[in-house]
């Protein structure tokens, strides 16, 4: 099988062996869920329930409020005890619906379709929208928005992202292996929704079992399964498109401009489930792993479950935890409050022991050029860092700061342990701020 590669990227320790052979376990719903109304990129959903209301499993509790937004549903049945700001994984307080679980899982009546592939493109889109589906790879961009690209672009390819290149994470791998049929069905539904006639499923070559199973089922459906180089960030949207199709997304543009729609495999699975059963997105599969966790696992978790419940279900900590991360080690968000709830975009909970959490003193740059060599969008991170440190925002922009995908490869590789990405983020904030000032 030909391995699809791209330029740049790094080879961190993948550490997937902790959980790659652990079947997905269903985590029981907690006594209380906290469901933020912003779990996605875009505008917050507007609450449709108030304190004291009784809610059913799957009932809409937040309505998509804007062109770029996604609705939110209750993951349990019970009573709303509060609609108030609560801490979320991004470190901020986010308006959330707090629900006491009555333990009955009394569900709202859901209308599925016994053979969803018969659904029209419009029906698929409206079901995806109604189910509040967002990109489950981590970015949590509302899927219904992606399914409605600007009219003048014809989508040719649906590219299903099964690379899961973040170290430790194995949720997508398990889904491809355990729910192969639904992944394929989801791919076909998503392709139909946008009128794409070609489907390519791209999987990192370190998941041979998933590739085999997908291939076995794909054969009859004109779906191509390809193997990707084992390298981070093979699953970055731009890198994936370049590796598989040899095309580049225009700078500051969208994949739809070059005829491509990229969706994550778990998103495809959620789409299949939503179309077949009518069940909205109220749970997801995530990996709990790291050297600081007793029993690394893959769990199916209800949205709104506190991190600490998930960690407890995985046997708790081994010794003192050094860092708890929502997501993977390359792009995840460090947490300090373990009451924060799991949301749609949480692909993993990673616990690193104190030993793994090193603090570095940045040393002078020795111009080794490794940051330049690994940047998967071909930037010169060291230059942007330099300009950012000196407040030279124009230069930082000229060197492509806004094209940075914040993959972290540059900081990862730097032998002088410089905080390259931190400075690039500063530059991006300043550049956006300056543009806002100019237009207002």
């Amino acid at each position, binding site marked *: 099988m030909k391995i699809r590669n791209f330029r740049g990227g790094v080879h961190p320790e993948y550490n997937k062996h902790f959980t790659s052979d652990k079947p997905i376990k269903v985590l029981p719903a907690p006594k209380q869920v906290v469901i933020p109304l912003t779990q996605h990129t875009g505008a917050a959903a507007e609450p449709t329930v108030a304190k004291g209301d009784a809610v059913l499993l799957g009932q809409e509790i937040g309505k998509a409020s804007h062109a770029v937004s996604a609705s939110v549903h209750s993951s349990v049945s019970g009573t709303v005890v509060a609609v108030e700001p609560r801490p979320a994984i991004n470190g901020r307080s986010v308006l959330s619906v707090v629900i006491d679980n009555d333990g009955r899982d009394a569900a709202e009546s859901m209308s599925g379709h016994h053979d969803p592939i018969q659904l029209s493109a419009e029906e698929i889109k409206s079901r995806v929208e109604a189910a509040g589906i967002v990109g489950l790879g981590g970015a949590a961009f509302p899927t219904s928005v992606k399914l409605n690209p600007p009219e003048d672009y014809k989508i040719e390819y649906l590219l299903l992202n099964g690379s899961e290149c973040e170290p430790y994470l194995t949720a997508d791998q398990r889904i491809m292996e355990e729910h192969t049929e639904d992944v394929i069905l989801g791919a076909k539904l998503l392709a139909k929704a946008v009128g794409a006639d070609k489907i390519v499923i791209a999987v990192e070559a370190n998941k041979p079992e998933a590739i085999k199973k997908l291939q076995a089922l794909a054969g009859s459906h004109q779906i191509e399964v390809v193997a990707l180089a084992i390298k981070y960030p093979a699953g970055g949207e731009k890198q994936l498109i370049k590796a598989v199709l040899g095309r580049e997304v*225009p700078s500051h543009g969208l994949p739809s401009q070059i005829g491509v729609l990229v969706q994550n495999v778990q998103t495809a699975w959620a789409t299949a489930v939503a179309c077949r059963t009518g069940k909205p997105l109220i749970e997801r599969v995530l990996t709990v792993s790291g050297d600081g966790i007793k029993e690394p696992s893959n769990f199916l978790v209800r949205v709104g479950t506190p991190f600490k419940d998930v960690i407890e279900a995985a046997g708790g900590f081994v010794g003192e935890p050094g860092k708890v991360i929502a997501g993977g080690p390359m792009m995840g968000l*460090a947490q300090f409050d373990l009451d924060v709830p799991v949301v749609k975009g949480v692909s993993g909970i990673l616990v690193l022991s104190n030993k793994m959490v090193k603090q570095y003193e940045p040393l002078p740059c020795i111009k080794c050029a490794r940051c330049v060599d690994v940047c998967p969008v071909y930037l010169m991170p060291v230059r942007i860092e330099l300009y950012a440190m000196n407040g030279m925002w124009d230069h930082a922009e000229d060197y492509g700061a806004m094209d940075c995908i914040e993959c972290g490869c540059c900081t990862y590789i730097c*032998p002088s342990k410089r905080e390259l990405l931190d400075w690039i983020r500063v530059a991006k904030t300043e550049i956006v701020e300056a543009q806002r000032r100019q237009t207002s």
Partner: protein
Amino acid sequence: MEGTRLVLSPSPHVRDEDTTQKIMLTVAAALVPVWAAATYFFGFDSIRLVVASALAAMGSEALFLALRRKPITISDGSALVTGMLLGLSLPPSLPTWMAVFGAFVAIVVGKQVFGGLGYNPFNPALVGRAVLVASFATQMTTWTAPFTDAVTQATPLVSGTAGYSELFFGTVPGSLGETSALAILLGGIILFYRGVLDYRIPVGFIGTVVVFSLLFGQDVVYQLLGGSLLFGAVFMATDMVTSPITPVGRWVFGIGCGLILVVIRFWGSLPEGLTYSILLMNALTPLINRWTRPRIYGRGVKDA
């Protein structure tokens, strides 16, 4: 379930194992085969000069940093590398004090006055060497033949009296580290496999010299192995701090070094020219970086 002692820092949360110090020590380790060969051919002189130069380099660095009340960072290994490189580029019969002087100049003038590690535009070892050549022209061009104390005035590049296999193994007069192609290649392989050497610079450098030697009817093997080209192309031109950081820039740099070397060797009044070819390209490095910025992903592509 205590959450308060958790470390909060932005991604990425893991880092590569390599450090500046490891890189420098790798270069030092790659120089060991070269030094061993030099010691085999030239005996105690090799130990005397390399040790003196390395100690003087580290001592000068420590002294300068102490005077400027800065943290003493000689454990980063960069002064050790500069000292070893300088020592190995010296003729075996050079007096010890000259090596010490050269190392002092290399560190203070070549590196610390610019702000220390990472800020120096020129390869410090070559700065030291250039000052030594200018100050002690005779001593810096007096060679001894291996295994003897017999003095000669010429490296094979000039004398033209050595067999090809002698050139390869290094049993010819020359600076300590430059005579044995075998040992240099071994060192180069170590650097390459540890990811410390970008092949573009030595390949561009050596390739250019080969092409021009052929064009102008020179003996290719002599041009390649008879002087300090190999040592310079593998260990001096590839100095990270003073060479370009863009992939295309590194080709330009290597080829540029080769062109200047050819011009000096074929038409100049100096027999060698390695030091100046690299120093000149060092000077051009900031410009090369500016001219060879990589095309950013997604720039210059059209919509479907």
